[in-house]
């Protein structure tokens, strides 16, 4: 199987401000968000990063999207290094998180074209793809309505479509169904499965077990910035269901740390 994403020993430490120290209830001036993380994702699979709040999922995905730089370690996205070839990496991935917002003033149509230009998509290709995607997500109906006047679900659909203008081979999705109602959430999960069917590689992060069980091929359990276990969903859920398995692992890991 082709390794489309290879993460090797990523480290990321944040300096904490006084305010953050209080918030995190810690005396330490630094926070190890990601601590020697490694994993691979194969072509055509959906890989799930599962972890509690503050585990380092978002930080990991931001590093993969080259929004922030790792302190050490590297990751190869379709052979390109996130450290040294950031622009090429960005042109190969579609990255989507709820923190990425679209400008209220513009219409979906304008934004689609704008982002197509930034990704260097040729006009004909762009128009064909736009038609297809807009139809699929029902954006046609509000293609000329300003983002400010769209509902959360509509915005999410537009964000999704805009992150895919360049038809990327790797799609990275942080908390894909967060804040969506069941209908919109289903549209999104169906779409992820659809991407997989097209042979794309999808990386999702979540703390929702059911989502993992529904769509993922392989799962990595991440706690305190470390990859505790990484295996196929099938192997992980051989003895117990995913939720019970996760709690076992969690108690084991955090318990270990407390003893130290």
């Amino acid at each position: 199987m082709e390794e489309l994403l290879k993460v090797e020993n990523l480290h990321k430490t944040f300096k904490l401000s006084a305010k953050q120290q209080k918030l995190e209830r810690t005396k330490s001036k630094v926070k190890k968000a990601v601590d020697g993380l490694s994993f691979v994702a194969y072509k055509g699979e959906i890989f799930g990063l599962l972890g509690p709040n503050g585990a380092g999922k978002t930080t990991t995905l931001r590093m993969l999207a080259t929004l922030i730089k790792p302190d050490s370690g590297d990751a190869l996205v379709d052979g390109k290094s996130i450290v040294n070839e950031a622009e090429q990496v960005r042109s190969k991935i579609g990255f989507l998180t709820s923190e990425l917002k679209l400008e209220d003033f513009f219409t979906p149509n304008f934004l689609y074209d704008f982002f197509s230009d930034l990704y260097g998509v040729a006009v004909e290709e762009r128009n064909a793809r736009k038609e297809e995607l807009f139809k699929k997500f029902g954006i046609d109906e509000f293609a000329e309505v300003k983002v400010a006047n769209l509902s959360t679900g509509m915005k999410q659909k537009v964000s999704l479509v805009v992150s895919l203008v360049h038809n990327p081979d790797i799609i990275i999705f942080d908390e894909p169904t967060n804040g969506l109602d069941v209908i919109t959430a289903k549209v999104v999960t169906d779409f992820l499965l659809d991407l997989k069917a097209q042979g794309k590689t999808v990386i999702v992060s979540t703390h929702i077990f059911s989502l993992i069980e529904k769509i993922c091929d392989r799962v990595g359990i991440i706690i305190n910035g470390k990859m505790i276990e990484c295996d196929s969903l099938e192997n992980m859920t051989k003895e117990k269901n995913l939720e019970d398995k996760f709690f076992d692992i969690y108690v084991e890991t955090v318990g270990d740390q407390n003893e130290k």
Partner: protein
Amino acid sequence: MKNNIWTIARKEFSRFFKDKGMVFSTILLPGLMIYVLYTFMGSGMSSMFGVDEEFIPKMSVVNMPESIDAMVETFDVTDVTNGQIEEIKAELQDKNAVTNLLVVFPENFDADVMAYDNLTATDAAPNVEVYYNSASTDSSEAYQIFFTILEQYETVLSNKFDVNAGEAVYDMATEEDTTGQIFASMLPMLMMIFMFSGCMAVAPEAIAGEKERGTMATLLVTPLKRRELAIGKVLSLGVIALLSGLSSFLGTYLSLPSLMGAASDQMDASIYGTTDFIMLFLIILSTVLVIIGMICVVSALAKSVKEAGSYITPLMIASMVIGITAMFGSGAKEEIYYYFIPLYNTVQSMLGIFSLDYNVVNIVVTVVSNVVYMGIFTVVLTKMFNSERIVYSK
């Protein structure tokens, strides 16, 4: 990729120009407001201080000295004798009287004044009596005018040097000089404020605002280079701010003559030639780019538009103070090194252009160094877009 710079710039332009409210408040309103305000202030001032040009004071004078006679040539002067004083006084009590003033000089006024030395004299100085009727507008005005003339004459007399220079004071300045002086001393500061407010209207919104609303990160996940983002922003915002600055300039330019009120027949902007305007345009353009660069960098430091505003205000005050320096001192500096100092070089260049006394080399130095400063700010901005601390400050 040059293309990406244009894509970013085009987005900024659509954001701005498709928003009618924004275009109105940033481009049309400043010029319009300034024009209306200054014209209003100007006409208000001239009706307060202005003199009715048709008005000719009618005065009766006893013992008219030759010196004063020369100064009131245009007045309607009737020589009267001591014996007529009471009669004219009575006439003046009617506020509709034909005569506006009665002036009584002592005999031999000129000679007495010349002989009088206020350091050694023991008896009172020669006294002039001016009778008027404050209930009559014409009489009051005539009194004001004549009183001013006497006062000026007195000033001239007490100043030996000026007395030697001649009996009347002539303004030796040509019309070109006066207009230039007024423009030159006021406009650099006004322009500074206009350019700054133009930049402030767009840059914090486009940098800190995008950070605050999370739309910046959306741009940063595309293959767009940080440098392209920085250049695209600085250039497009620069163009918008330039339009805003030009609008303010136009408003000022068109209303300045009436703002100057009474002096308005001397105020005439047509003394400036095409070259002067081209120089001015280059100065304004390059300065707006410097200011935009500066404000962009400061905005990138801020987490919100509000915070950006609080960082920029001191900068604006500082630049106003630099603008005020143009009102003091005599004309533009000649030494070339002044023209390497950002903002100060703008003020000096404008001072030179407006007073029609400038060195083209200095203007070129200003424009070139401003472009270099903009380049430096763009590099800094690129560095900041690259810094996750700036983009992801919590």
